[in-house]
């Protein structure tokens, strides 16, 4: 089996983009190709993550359309949709194809617009997001996506005594990290008081507990060990990917606070990479809501079950802490253009492993982990990257 490497990365700023999806993605993709030092002619296949453009922009069959805009028409193209885990799933398939020797060099990326540039206002976009819940047995209750994670987090608060202040501390930490990231949608600090004073979206979450609606794109070039060795740019090895699912509707999940798919995906990824949670130097996790980061760090084994609420308060997960989580600012501060999020996590981690993350660099990082979930955590993809630093 071949060893897959990330050999080039690129992403747009996350925020509000008036540009069409094709142009938005091209910006990230050409940055990734240039970073790798390869032209489009080297790309043998294209893997695209895009979750919602059929609903939000009336735009489908997007992979060949975008490939054509990039001058890649002709190569096999595929588009993935797994709610918020969309582009991690594209990445997994790209890596598997390289590992299997099917392709030597591929382009993987994600793009999405979720702001009013789509023409959709908050209630309409809230409905688009809610469509990831079960069509017959969940959506008709009026559950929103903040509400889905509200159900999981309320249960965590009940079982473990997690508090609203602890949730707010996650937002404060990630906003703080976001101030060090030029690409982040929010570049300002917040405070526990400001979070707790913000209006309720779905209990226990207030506006500042929630990631924003965002537009953006991210891309990576994945290549096998032979191609990677010939390239000028530092490459990082993809040493483990885990991918697992859980039952939908969420009421039938065995444990609402476990995010079992994350535990299963992490077990697979740690096993493949032959490391444990204690070996991870830096992680990007799926903090669509503050409570989601707490569930994630427990599921990944960074803290004991029930202890997740304390981590941000005590600085465990801050830059400079025992296990820095979301140095990019996370979805919370960096932004969450759904289909681009999974790849954007990998862009961030690659930069840390190369020692190119600037002010937010985790010094000496050699092992990095990305956790990207979809829907009510019925999908999770966990990816482990290793550098030589």
């Amino acid at each position: 089996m071949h060893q897959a490497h990330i050999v080039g990365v690129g992403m747009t700023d996350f925020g509000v983009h008036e540009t069409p999806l094709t142009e938005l993605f091209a910006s990230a993709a050409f940055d990734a190709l240039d970073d790798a030092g390869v032209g489009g002619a080297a790309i043998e296949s294209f893997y695209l993550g895009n979750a919602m453009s059929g609903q939000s922009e009336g735009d489908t069959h997007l992979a060949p359309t975008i490939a054509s805009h990039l001058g890649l028409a002709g190569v096999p193209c595929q588009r993935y949709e797994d709610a918020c885990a969309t582009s991690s799933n594209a990445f997994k398939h790209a890596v598997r194809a390289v590992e299997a020797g099917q392709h030597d060099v591929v382009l993987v990326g994600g793009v999405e617009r979720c702001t009013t540039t789509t023409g959709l206002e908050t209630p309409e976009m809230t409905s688009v997001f809610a469509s990831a819940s079960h069509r017959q047995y969940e959506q008709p209750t009026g559950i929103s996506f903040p509400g889905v994670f509200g159900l999981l987090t309320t249960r965590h608060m009940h079982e473990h005594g997690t508090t609203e202040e602890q949730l707010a501390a996650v937002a404060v930490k990630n906003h703080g990290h976001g101030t060090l990231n030029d690409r982040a949608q929010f570049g300002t600090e917040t405070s526990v008081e400001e979070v707790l004073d913000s209006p309720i979206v779905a209990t226990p979450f207030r506006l500042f507990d929630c990631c924003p609606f965002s537009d953006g794109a991210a891309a990576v070039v994945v290549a096998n060990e032979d191609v990677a060795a010939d390239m000028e740019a530092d490459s990082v090895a993809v040493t483990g990917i885990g991918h697992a699912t859980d039952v939908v509707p969420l009421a039938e999940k065995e444990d609402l606070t476990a995010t079992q798919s994350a535990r299963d995906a992490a077990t697979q990824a740690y096993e493949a990479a032959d490391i444990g949670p204690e070996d991870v130097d830096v992680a990007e996790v799926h903090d669509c809501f503050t409570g989601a980061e707490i569930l994630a760090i427990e599921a990944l084994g960074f803290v004991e079950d029930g202890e997740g609420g304390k981590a941000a308060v005590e600085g465990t997960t801050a830059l400079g802490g025992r296990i820095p989580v979301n140095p990019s600012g996370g979805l919370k501060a960096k932004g969450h253009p759904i289909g681009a999020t999974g790849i954007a996590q990998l862009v961030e981690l690659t930069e840390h492993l190369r020692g190119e993350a600037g002010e937010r660099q985790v010094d000496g990082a050699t092992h990095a982990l990305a956790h990207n979930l979809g829907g009510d955590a019925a999908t999770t993809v966990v990816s482990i990257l290793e550098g030589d630093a």
Partner: protein
Amino acid sequence: MSETHSNEAAESLPEQLNHRTWTQALREGRLLGQRCRDCGAETATPSAACNACGSRERVTIELPTTGTLYTETTVAVAPQGFDGGYRVGVVDLGSTRVMARLEGDSDIGDSIELAGVLEVDSPVPVFE
């Protein structure tokens, strides 16, 4: 659908539980679920096979209409078609759980019962 047909359904359990028969029962004040004939796992909404063991041998069962509140959220910013400010919860029915709209101010662990059906979209249970 004839009147006779729906009366028959009210008295007996549909052999095959699907969205149509689940909905029909719900409108009659009944909550139907499934038990796996092979491993015994129970669910509160229909699926074509068991997630615990993969068996397609599904038995329709009558679920209790009282349960305890397992978790809840108040949705303030609502999807289209809904007016925010309502509560959605997960109700523990013993062997399984179901998502429902909530009325009243029940806390986690409180006993609540099936109180009606919400039909903004397709029908879902309301517990109070």
